[in-house]
């Protein structure tokens, strides 16, 4: 298939020439996922008591599904601003790894242009981009913007749609929508473990995190539970790897 296309279009872009529109097209397979998770997030945000303006601001400047679910849950529970921001920092630290993994393919850009490329990076767009990188040395900046912006607009629309409909959904629990967040975490966790193939250490780290999170939540507070569990379990993982 690839060879055929190359034969038909001999002058078509050796590398680095994928267009903005091609990026938008390559985003299409992920759109359904964004729509449904974004919609669920919008409903949960609305029922947590956020206004439409706050929800719009969240999806525009925060633009991270897990963080938006966590923020609305913790705001509804009356957690302190500091504990909400720290929890979100930890949850989104995984972006460091995604961004680092993509960096070799954007060495041809200046730091400022790389900032624009990274500012809309998500799990899904990373997945599409890293797949693209398998056949290239550089990833086209225009293509990446097409991919990112298509995903971004779709997310904002889904969020607002969820928020508007959330006005009429009095109990999202009845539809299981409150489970979108844990289910998403389960998906992210499983995919992370499967892609690393370090099952023994990863499962150990996961179990340590579960025990600490539950213990600290019961004895202290749930938001401290996540923070403590992350710090301790990640350090344990590093230690186990070193002494093994």
């Amino acid at each position, binding site marked *: 298939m690839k060879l055929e296309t190359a034969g038909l279009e001999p002058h078509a872009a050796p590398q680095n020439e994928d267009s903005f529109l091609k990026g938008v097209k390559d985003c299409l397979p992920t759109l359904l996922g964004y729509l449904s998770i974004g919609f669920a997030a919008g409903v949960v945000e609305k029922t947590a008591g956020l206004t439409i303006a706050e929800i719009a601001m969240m999806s525009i*400047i925060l633009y991270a599904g897990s963080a938006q679910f966590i923020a609305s849950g913790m705001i509804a529970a009356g957690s302190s601003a500091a504990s909400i921001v720290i929890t979100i920092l930890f949850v989104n*630290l995984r972006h460091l790894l995604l961004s680092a993994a993509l960096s070799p393919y954007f060495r041809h850009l200046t730091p400022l242009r790389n900032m624009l490329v990274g500012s809309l990076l998500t*799990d899904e767009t990373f997945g599409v981009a890293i797949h693209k990188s398998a056949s290239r040395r550089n990833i086209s900046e225009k293509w990446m913007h097409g991919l990112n912006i298509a995903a971004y607009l779709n997310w904002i629309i889904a969020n607002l749609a969820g928020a508007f409909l959330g006005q009429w959904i009095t109990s999202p629990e009845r539809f299981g929508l409150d*489970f979108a967040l844990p289910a998403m*975490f*389960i998906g992210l966790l499983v995919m992370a473990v499967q892609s690393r193939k370090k099952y023994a250490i990863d499962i150990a780290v996961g179990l340590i*995190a579960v025990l600490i999170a539950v213990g600290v939540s019961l004895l202290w507070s749930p938001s401290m539970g996540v923070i403590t569990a992350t710090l301790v379990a990640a350090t344990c993982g590093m230690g186990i790897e070193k002494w093994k």
Partner: protein
Amino acid sequence: MDIFLIIAGAALVTFVPRVLPLMLLSRINLPDWGMRWLNYVPIAVMSALIAEELFIQDGELSLLASNMEWIAALPTFWVAIRTRSLLGSVIAGILSLMLLRFFF
């Protein structure tokens, strides 16, 4: 105002990890232990969040049959492992919990 600050703070701590490696890694490299530690952060934080969602309710441990979330987590894990799809996991989770709440 408070909510505005929370959203702005959350946006900032989300923005920095997204852009910093792309901006800097062509110039400098993280120390080895730093990368290894970061490697375990996603596993640790996801596990901790899942545990809290499933087992903690209003600051109390809830392992009872009345808490159906951990039961719904089982098919969700199964679908996640089989499909490796975020969307698949979310749909499986939502449907499982909806059906459990409908029937029990």
